[in-house]
């Protein structure tokens, strides 16, 4: 199916050939993968990089004088530069490799433990994933600082009026996701960053749900910390990154002790290595880092503008089609969102819905999406969520809608 309404050359059939998993069957039916917000699929180009690493140059990095170690180090550091360029960071050493978004957030939260005291306030948005709430609760327990929540409006947007009021408390830190995983809401982070800085607060943006769809420019955003995971953007699991302004990386203490992060060690004193190694203790996920870089290259070869345009088209198509289903309720904002549809069908439990459509080969998410506060807000026990990627098709959406109708008929 050629996508004709877009100005770009976007041939989804050709793109799908890059993803071997998309041609498998599940329960005897062709797989329709609509759980992209949980994890994206991996193109052959990235799989090849992983195989190449273990087949040809697997070695520990940064310390070997031998050729394999050098090759692996070069590729790993090249991947860091790829990520730096992609996010337009000023320096490669402002990119810290982590095991993923959660690790990145914990690294920052842990660092702030030594910078906060009982009189301090930190702000977190009500639209957060659990991983972005718990580390701050732990931080507040440790430092006795106060955690305040930026609430949601009934539309599923952040209440910016309350945000303005909370900023009067002069918080030290603000945490918000770029895009909500449960609802797909795109938060006004430019405005939020500017306002946070105006009162002297640092701000961390969780970009896990944003990076598969848009290309953030950390310098233009003037953000202090930006975090994301490789597996949401066609890379492997177990690898992610923390971008932090150089000044912050100097201010924060190291997160973990171990090899790679030290300059000199005696039993009296250890001096830490320079950036980025100060935050990268131990042998990292070398292959993962290299494959993360390859995944970013792959996505850029398709182009984020083309991806965003096509996914928007899929979202509009899916919203229209799904709204024809009797009893359909879609949660979250109508516009200003990414290709995520969080929904319920009246009289049908999301778990039942997910179970039946799985039998039809369709993978959707059900439950609370690690975002219980959001579910409490809507007074529901959970939702079903279909999330679309640039390799999905309108035909798959048609099959989803048929599947949901069939399931609803069985279950009501």
């Amino acid at each position, binding site marked *: 199916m050629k996508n004709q309404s877009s100005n770009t050359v976007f041939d989804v059939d050709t793109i799908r050939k890059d993803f071997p998993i998309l041609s498998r069957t599940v*329960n005897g039916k062709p797989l329709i993968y609509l759980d992209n917000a949980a994890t994206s699929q991996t193109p052959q180009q990235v799989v090849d990089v992983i195989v190449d690493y273990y087949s040809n140059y697997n070695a520990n990095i940064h310390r070997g004088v031998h050729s394999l170690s050098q090759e692996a180090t070069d590729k790993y550091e090249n991947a860091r530069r790829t990520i730096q360029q992609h996010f337009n960071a000023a320096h490669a050493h402002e990119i810290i490799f982590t095991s993923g978004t959660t690790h990145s957030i914990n690294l920052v939260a842990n660092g702030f433990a030594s910078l906060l005291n009982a009189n301090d306030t930190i702000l977190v948005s009500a639209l957060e994933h659990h991983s972005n709430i718990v580390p701050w609760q732990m931080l507040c327990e440790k430092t006795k600082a106060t955690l305040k929540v930026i609430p949601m409006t009934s539309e599923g947007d952040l209440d910016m009026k309350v945000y303005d009021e909370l900023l009067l408390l002069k918080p030290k830190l603000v945490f918000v996701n770029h895009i909500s995983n449960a609802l797909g809401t795109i938060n006004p982070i430019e405005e939020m960053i500017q306002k946070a800085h105006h009162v002297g607060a640092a701000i961390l943006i969780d970009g896990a749900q944003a990076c598969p769809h848009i290309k953030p420019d950390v310098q233009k955003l003037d953000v202090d910390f930006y975090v994301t995971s490789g597996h949401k953007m066609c890379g492997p699991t177990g690898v992610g990154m923390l971008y932090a302004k150089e000044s912050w990386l100097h201010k924060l203490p190291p997160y973990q002790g171990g090899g790679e992060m030290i300059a000199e060690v005696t039993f009296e004193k250890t001096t830490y290595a320079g950036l980025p190694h100060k935050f990268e203790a131990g042998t990292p996920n070398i292959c993962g880092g290299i494959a993360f870089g390859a995944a970013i290259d792959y996505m850029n070869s398709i182009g984020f503008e083309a991806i965003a345009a096509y996914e928007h088209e899929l979202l509009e198509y899916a919203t229209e089609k799904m709204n024809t289903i009797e009893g359909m309720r879609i949660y979250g904002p109508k516009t200003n969102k990414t290709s995520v549809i969080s929904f319920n069908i009246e009289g049908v439990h999301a*778990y*039942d819905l997910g179970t039946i459509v799985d039998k039809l080969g369709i993978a959707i998410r059900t439950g609370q999406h690690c975002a219980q506060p959001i579910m409490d807000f809507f007074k529901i026990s959970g939702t079903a969520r279909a999330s679309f990627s640039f390799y999905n098709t309108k035909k798959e959406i048609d099959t989803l809608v048929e599947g949901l109708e069939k399931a609803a008929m069985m279950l009501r």
Partner: protein
Amino acid sequence: MNIETIQADLIDEFSIFDDWMERYEYMIELGKSLPMIASEFKTDDNIIKGCQSKVWLHAELENDTVVFTADSDAIITKGIVAILIRVFSNQSPETILKTNTDFIDEIGLKEHLSPTRANGLVSMIKKIKMYALAYQTQIGL
């Protein structure tokens, strides 16, 4: 009724279905016909953890047999719990404890037996056995 006979009946009933849809439709039907749990037992304490849907399970000892009542907000889960109640309710604690759950595999619902499934079938069985163990101890005393 003898627990083996109940299991054999269930296997027999499910064997007439050719495909998953018919099996699930039957399971949904079983769920819908599950007798209502008394509202005073639909408490947070009776919720089984480990389910994506809510499952309430209550047990009482009557004439040395354990009587289970249950409910769920999801109909497939309710069907699963209805099957378990049909097998395990009105049995002696001893019988409940020594009975295995192979019949679930035999009625074509093996996929639900994986401990990582979000429906919590494994948690339900564990809870049923725990009640049986508790009542066995009580009778023994």
